[in-house]
């Protein structure tokens, strides 16, 4: 294996790693990406097989503790009310993500100033705006222009169909005078650039064999590999090493595809391992200079873990909703209850997302993110024949606020196949979030009834979905003050001047929207800052 020193070493080939590599292409620096997983071709995706749904409970589960593939690391979530889910491989979690693509809103970057909670970001919506736009073009985003929930922007492709389900719910929102809009999606609605338009197969979590979904495997990586970026797969980084004298990162130790431990030197190291993988690696990189983990002088590495706790409410309608047709997560999104309103009994807000329904197997086994099977016997027959086909649901996706006790640490016993300690999640849903969920359930029921639902199905048990740790944020937050943040306003570690972090772990707050459009816009922004500051990068 050729371990010659490189200019830029990116760890992780997911959403953020791919975006920053693209941004740095024009510098002509030698870029290497180490990725613990492998490449999957579209032919390997299960939706080309007749028994595709079975893979959702086996090798294509979104839960690494179920999948247990060689490249997966186990996660101890015994002390958490939500378990993180992901994909480890080229494309990262955009392999199985659902491509719902809302941006964060201007107020999300200023929660402290506006509402006295969380913290303000060192960047704002308008700093990121050009990078949102650039990324939307690169990824291939479809949607309807003119959403009054945002400052004006242009979506590159026309919207995907919202379907009978979306139309029905939209009428309910209109009746109540509440905001809704067709969802922005990282899915192409037209054939373009060698990518086939969405064929509405509804298996977005199983990889998208059409190539319509804007996973980094289909968008950035083909360009990057063509341009000479070296992607070394099956390569798991164990530790980042620092030079005792300069205090700079000098390289990494990684387990290569040959099963051996290798040393790779680099001038600049960029971490893109996601909100769980990045703090895990930093905490495992202990040295005399950094006895509590690399870049952790603030003590905040791993702290302030945020998910988007969520739950769902469904309505039973009198005509089939055909919810299995079309991209799983994306139909319409209401942001009526997104901003703070003190009369509601909680701070900040939530979105009402209309996903589509899942297939009969997934529904019978408890739906996406839940996994408690529906009843057996006569009740089963009744549900599957007279309820399932007529369902339309809303998911209440709440803003999680940063709290230090919600964190990623290293497990004392559990290890991955290379003997690296597994991450341990400690996480509790806050009272603020519980109040939001309750409010959201009531509003969802109201709008479903307004849309014509004959009956409402709701869990009403104060529990959030367990396998809904799709979004992992906050564990290496950005900020101006080195005592209160891990990286500065452009992703550079306060403590180690040639170490950058670009994934969801640098989020200061979470907003109440899916994070990946912001993660990639932020990675492009950081790439831009690196280029602008190249002469004084390590000062």
């Amino acid at each position, binding site marked *: 294996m050729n371990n010659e020193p490189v200019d830029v070493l990116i760890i992780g080939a997911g959403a953020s790693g791919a975006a920053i590599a693209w941004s740095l292409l024009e510098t002509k620096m030698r870029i290497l990406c180490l990725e613990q997983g492998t490449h999957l071709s579209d032919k390997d995706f299960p939706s080309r097989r007749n028994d595709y749904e079975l893979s959702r409970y086996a090798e294509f589960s979104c839960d690494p503790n179920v999948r247990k593939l060689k490249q997966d690391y186990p996660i101890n979530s015994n002390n958490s009310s939500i378990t993180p889910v992901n994909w480890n491989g080229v494309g990262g979690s955009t392999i199985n993500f659902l491509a719902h693509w809302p941006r964060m809103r201007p107020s999300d970057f200023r929660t402290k100033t506006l509402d006295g909670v969380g913290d303000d970001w060192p960047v704002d919506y308008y700093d990121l705006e050009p990078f949102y736009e650039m990324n939307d073009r690169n990824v291939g985003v479809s949607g309807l222009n003119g959403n009054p929930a945002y400052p004006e922007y242009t979506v590159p492709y026309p919207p995907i169909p919202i379907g009978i389900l979306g139309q029905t719910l939209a009428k309910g929102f209109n009746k109540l005078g509440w905001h809704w809009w067709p969802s922005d999606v990282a899915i192409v609605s037209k054939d373009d650039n060698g990518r086939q338009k969405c064929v509405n197969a509804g298996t977005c979590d199983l990889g998208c064999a059409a190539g319509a979904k804007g996973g980094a495997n289909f968008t950035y990586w083909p360009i990057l590999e063509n341009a000479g970026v070296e992607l070394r797969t099956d390569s798991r980084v164990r530790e980042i090493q620092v030079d005792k004298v300069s205090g700079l990162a000098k390289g990494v130790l990684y387990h290569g595809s040959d099963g051996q431990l290798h040393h790779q030197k680099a001038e600049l190291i960029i971490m893109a391992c996601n909100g769980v993988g990045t703090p895990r690696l930093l905490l495992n990189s202990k040295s005399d200079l950094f006895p509590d983990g690399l870049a952790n002088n603030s003590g905040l590495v791993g702290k302030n873990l945020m998910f988007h706790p969520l739950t769902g409410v469904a309505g039973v309608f009198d005509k089939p909703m055909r919810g299995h047709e079309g991209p799983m997560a994306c139909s319409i999104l209401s942001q009526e209850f997104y901003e703070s309103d003190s009369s509601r009994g909680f701070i900040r807000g939530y979105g009402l997302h209309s996903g589509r329904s899942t297939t009969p197997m997934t529904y019978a086994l408890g739906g996406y993110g839940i996994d408690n099977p529906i009843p057996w016997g006569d009740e089963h027959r009744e549900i599957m*024949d007279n309820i399932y086909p007529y369902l339309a649901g809303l998911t209440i996706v709440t803003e999680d606020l940063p709290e230090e006790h919600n964190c990623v640490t290293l497990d004392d016993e559990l290890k991955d196949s290379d003997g690296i300690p597994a991450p341990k999640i400690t996480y509790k849903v806050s009272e603020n979030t519980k109040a939001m969920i309750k409010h959201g359930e009531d509003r969802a029921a109201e709008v479903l009834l307004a849309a014509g639902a004959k009956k409402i199905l709701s869990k009403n048990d104060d529990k959030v979905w367990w396998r809904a740790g799709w979004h992992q944020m906050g564990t290496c937050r950005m900020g101006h003050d080195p005592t209160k943040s891990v990286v500065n306003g452009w992703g550079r570690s306060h403590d180690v001047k040639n170490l950058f972090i670009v994934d969801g772990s640098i989020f200061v707050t979470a907003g109440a929207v899916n994070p990946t459009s912001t993660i990639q816009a932020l990675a492009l922004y950081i790439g831009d800052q690196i280029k602008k500051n190249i002469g004084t990068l390590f000062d």
Partner: protein
Amino acid sequence: MWSEIEKKILTEILDELIPANPAKKIPSAGQLGVASFIFEVASNSPKLQENIKLVLTWVISKADKISPHLVREIELIHPNAFGSLITETYKGYYSRPDIRKKLYLSEKAVHPFGYEVKSESDEYLKELTDAVRSRGTVYRDPTGGRR
């Protein structure tokens, strides 16, 4: 590996777990032969094999006729084994192309063809969203629209 009596009992239990709907010509899980699916999966999973054996041995020792009441008893006495039986039953039943078709799904792999879903026309989308637009912006901008 599995005796005839075990196969028969499992099939009868499956009929209770997912009964038929004769009016819609939808067969039960037993009629559909989901037992073979379960035995097949169990042949690669010692844990599932153990669970199915536990359930069948208990049932054979208790009664020779399966009823909803008896199945409820298994659920109470052997909840874990019963849970894994339920999971595999649902997987076996709903992965069958003929059942998927009855529930409006594609019988075969969903790629490359997927489903035909008509796009809403520009006019219809405009009509639907007019009310939303007419209420004006619904976001706070702390920068006062810095752009």
